[in-house]
């Protein structure tokens, strides 16, 4: 066992070093000590849900090690984190920090429509601290209006374009709640902004991720919702999505159930049910399907928001895009989606992913919001196993890196903080690593066949399953499943090889035949 500044390294004394464990300190969620006589035991519970037990002879040594690990795994300054010290052992082919710029996104958009523009109103993060410097807004709304709208929306998060549905020109916007307060304040510019996204004579839908009662209560605290009188062209739908500590508790309960070694089936099922985790999955997927349905089937524009617009809102908008947009089901497209709808959109990763299911800290800002999103993607992936370019491992990798990583991508809570920390200059981007061909090959789905259609998942309880790949990852024996995956890859690979060989032979044959004919002519 060896402790370095950022890693816990355990290596068996075998010559070949076959078994070596490298664990990032930042991956450690909690640590327990136990003593039996002079034999000390340290149980390390990780954020990726793994549990490691170390038996250390000698009480004093054990205590020393435990306190070192504890200190090293709870650094309070971001700048001491590993990403600031990590030096990559690979050659950077493409800097991930600039792989997914909103400007490129806008270029694509402007090739199909000219109704939108890039606004730099937030260049200094002055209008909205949690927004990126540039955003896409309706062309007809100028920056002054945006500034006014920002004052009317919680945290300055005015409605911006999240997704444009090329098929019918409908748009999905996201924002935070309007600050109507108890006296029904209104903002003409806000109304104008959202109405600018509507086709004449058509309605739009506001999907509020809070139940009506909660939205009404929010008015007492200065928040609120779009009232029919002021937004006559919009229909409001309340689609409740659970948040914060409820989610975190659910997560903790589920992980506890998954670590229960009992053989009792009833106990397992009742714990699974009591955790409510799958209920949250179902609710979230349903809300996302609804948003997608409004856009694709009803031909309506959609505005999604909850209270702050940094959690459930992003879950809904990003999942709806997975359903609607085939591009988001490619590796690159999915990465772009994460950057656009999560990182740039200001999901506070550092707060939400500070601790995982084993921690006792119970801070109210910790919540597995991103994990829930990834699991929903997995549920859709499971139902459409050939429509995604990436595989389950890709999603698991993102889960791991959101909680503990050598890369700077998921540090900070928004672009503003990332800029202050100078992350792009001082740390390596996850995408620089992932998008190298060597790594990519691990994350490719062998069954992928581009599917240009909208995919409608089933959200019936029978269709949803526990994500074993994450929750039973360290308990279930994975050999047989891995073998099956290998088999799948081999079948496809062999098929492709044969295709290539047959084509090569055909060409060769055609050449020879042509030569032959030439000779004959001569």
């Amino acid at each position, binding site marked *: 066992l060896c402790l370095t500044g950022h890693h816990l390294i355990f290596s068996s004394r075998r010559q070949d070093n076959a078994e070596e464990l490298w664990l990032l300190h930042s991956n450690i969620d909690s640590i327990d000590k136990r003593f039996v006589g002079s034999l000390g035991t340290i149980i390390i519970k990780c954020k990726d849900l793994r549990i490691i037990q170390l038996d250390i002879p000698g009480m004093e040594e054990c205590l020393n090690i435990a306190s070192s690990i504890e200190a090293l795994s709870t650094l309070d300054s971001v700048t001491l984190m590993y990403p600031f010290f990590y030096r990559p052992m690979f050659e950077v082919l493409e800097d991930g920090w600039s792989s997914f710029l909103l400007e490129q996104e806008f270029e694509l958009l402007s090739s199909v429509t000219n109704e939108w523009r890039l606004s730099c109103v937030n260049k200094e993060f002055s209008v909205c601290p949690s927004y990126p410097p540039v955003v896409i807004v309706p062309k007809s709304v100028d920056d002054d209006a945006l500034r006014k709208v920002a004052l009317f929306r919680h945290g300055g998060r005015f409605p911006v374009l999240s997704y444009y549905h090329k098929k019918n020109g409908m748009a999905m916007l996201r924002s935070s709640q309007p600050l109507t307060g108890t006296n029904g304040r209104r903002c003409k510019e806000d109304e104008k902004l959202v109405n600018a996204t509507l086709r004449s004579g058509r309605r739009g839908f506001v999907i509020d991720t809070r139940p009506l009662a909660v939205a009404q209560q929010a008015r007492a605290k200065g928040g609120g919702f779009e009232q029919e009188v002021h937004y006559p062209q919009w229909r409001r739908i309340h689609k409740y999505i659970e948040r914060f500590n409820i989610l975190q508790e659910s997560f903790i309960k589920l992980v506890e159930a998954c670590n229960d070694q009992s053989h009792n089936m009833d106990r*397992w099922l009742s714990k699974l*049910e009591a955790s409510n985790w799958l209920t949250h999955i179902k609710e979230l997927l349903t809300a996302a399907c609804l948003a997608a*349905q409004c856009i694709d089937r009803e031909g309506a524009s959609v505005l999604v928001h909850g209270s702050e617009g940094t959690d459930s809102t992003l879950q809904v908008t990003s999942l709806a895009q997975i359903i609607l947009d085939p591009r988001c089901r490619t590796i690159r497209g999915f990465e772009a989606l994460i950057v656009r709808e999560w990182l740039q959109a200001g999901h506070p990763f550092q707060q939400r992913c500070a601790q995982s299911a084993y921690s006792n800290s119970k801070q109210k800002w910790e919540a597995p919001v991103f994990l829930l999103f990834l699991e929903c993607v997995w549920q859709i992936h499971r139902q459409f196993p050939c429509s995604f370019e990436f595989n389950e491992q890709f999603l698991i990798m993102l889960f791991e890196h959101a909680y503990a990583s050598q890369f700077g991508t998921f540090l900070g809570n928004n672009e503003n903080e990332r800029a202050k920390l100078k992350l792009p200059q001082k740390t390596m981007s996850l995408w620089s690593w992932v998008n190298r061909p060597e790594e990519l090959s691990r994350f490719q789905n062998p069954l992928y066949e581009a599917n240009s259609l*909208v995919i*409608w998942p089933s959200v019936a*309880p029978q*269709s949803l399953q526990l994500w074993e790949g994450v929750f039973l990852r360290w308990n279930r024996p994975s050999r047989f499943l891995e073998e099956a995956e290998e088999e799948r890859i081999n079948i496809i690979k062999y098929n492709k090889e044969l295709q290539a060989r047959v084509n090569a032979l055909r060409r060769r*044959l055609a050449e020879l035949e042509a030569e032959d004919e030439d000779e004959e002519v001569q």
Partner: protein
Amino acid sequence: VENVRLLDRLSSRRAVVGTLYLTATHVIFVENGSETRKETWVLHSQISSIEKQATTATGCPLLIRCKNFQVIQLVIPQERDCHDVYISLIRLARPVKYEELYCFSFNPKLDKEEREQGWKLVDLNEEYHRMGVPNNYWQISDVNRDYGVCDSYPTEVYVPKSATAHIIVGSSKPPRRRRFPALSYYCKGNNASICRSSQPLSGFSARCLEDEQMLQAIRKANPGSDFIYVVDTRPKLNAMANRAAGKGYENEDNYSNIKFQFIGIENIHVMRNSLQKMLEGNIPLNWKLEKRIDPSVKELKSPSMSDFLWGLENSGWLKHIKAIMDAGIFIAKAVAEEGVSVLVHCSDGWDRTAQVCSVASLLLDPYYRTMKGFMVLIEKDWVSFGHKFNHRYGNLDGDPKEISPVIDQFIECVWQLMEQFPCAFEFNERFLIHIQHHIYSCQFGNFLCNSQKERRELKIKERTYSLWAHLWKNRADYLNPLFRPDHSQSQGTLHPQIAPCNFLYKFWSGMYNRFEKGLHPPPSVTDYLMAVKEETQQLEEELEVLQERLANLQKSQSGNNKVKSKQQDQSKQFGLYTSNNSLANTPQEYSNDLKSFPSRSPSQGDEDSALILTQDNLKSSDPDLSANSDQESGVEDLSCRSPSGGGCLPSEDSGKDSDEAVFLAG
């Protein structure tokens, strides 16, 4: 009956209007209007219950539940018609004579020889030889030649060599066992065996010397071990209750060298109720049917996740599946790892014993994980040893208390194992589903009656066809693409995980919801991979042809300059080749071929699967999305590849001979 509405089980707003026909063998619903004439065929023998509900403004609702888990909800405009249909169906769904069953009228247009060949496909004699018996320890006994000793056993049973006829008869005559211990599986490698019997009729004190000798004989047949396990698959409490009734279990004091083991698998009544509860919890039918029929009522909540999980837990179904699996794992371990022989029994030795013996065999012997081997396994442990198919699956009208999903549970155990060992089985999920279907369909003679004796008396083999031949003929549909005979998972004993946290026992949606098409998005990975494999095979063949052609061409070109006349020959040859080639595959066609996977490509078939979203729906702000998502085209794709080539029901290949259909429609 015309203008009948067929309701979609998942969605209140989706109903199709059509005409209902009743024939001698099927209920047929034909949709109006649609160009494809979508039809739903249901065999009478699949109907498990018919329920007539209170008449509403729009008509009279009729609910038909099927044994293959299809649920059909019809609304018939006229009360009188509905009543007639109801009465006719009750009669048709409950035949009283075997001769009324479908298999006696079903004719797949095979001649006599083909029929006989079909029945010979699965040969148990061959199977026992494969296991390695008879040998020095085991022999065929003819004590049951005329079903004289046990009428639910086959005529030929394997017993230890040292068990004389006197011992066998002694151990099987009342007041001892009705079904004497007989060989179920023999492990060639270490001589350990699995034997099966019914419970001993020992009561509290009675001893039976012959029975004790019988068990000694089983032990001696395995010289490597000095004891045998006796596994009683019942919960201990049940076994003790039986003891008070003069039956019971082996007393370890009287039987030397046995180790006794209880494994608590519940009885058929508990299992029947459990299945019923699970199906109710699955998609709650108590979802207020009246509301669904009256279109003015829009309030319809989709079933919640916790209701579903709670229902699953409350039904105890997965717990029972796990109990059966655990018993099988215990026995497989005893045989493979300890080399100890096992005697398995429950009360009668034809339900739980059959489940447990077959699960254990499946774990022990890779042969049973092949398609042919699985047929043999069912034939051996279920059909030949007198599992009461007729009573358990209600083929003839009988005591409803005898009905129980015993073999369904075994089939589900196999599926759970397939989930855990994806490469270990030669067959796929569809194979299991179709076997389950035909256990109830009575389309083939295999599962008729309660014993071999009854089947012989009915002359089943002369009068009906064998399912195994039918499945074998269509085996391409049932292959697991991940299976390779040389794969490590296809070798040796399987060691499944038992704790839920190590392996998830799942709800088998593919079986219990297989008619809820919306729940099963597009064609499965299995089908996709099979298509790829098929294409790979074609490519291999083409590669060979191409290589040969290339070689020929090069050879002739090098010899080109020598003889002039040869050149002409060769050009002739060349012409021949091109025509050959165009027959086989031209490059253009080929790439089309690649692209023409859409029907199999899992990524297709969603465009029309719209979620219907009405304004009303949005108003209620709780649209039941789950109810509407429907990947119809995807499902249809699947059905194209069902063995029938027709619809999604395996039964459909048969009934469509319209000449035999009698239309009773009013």
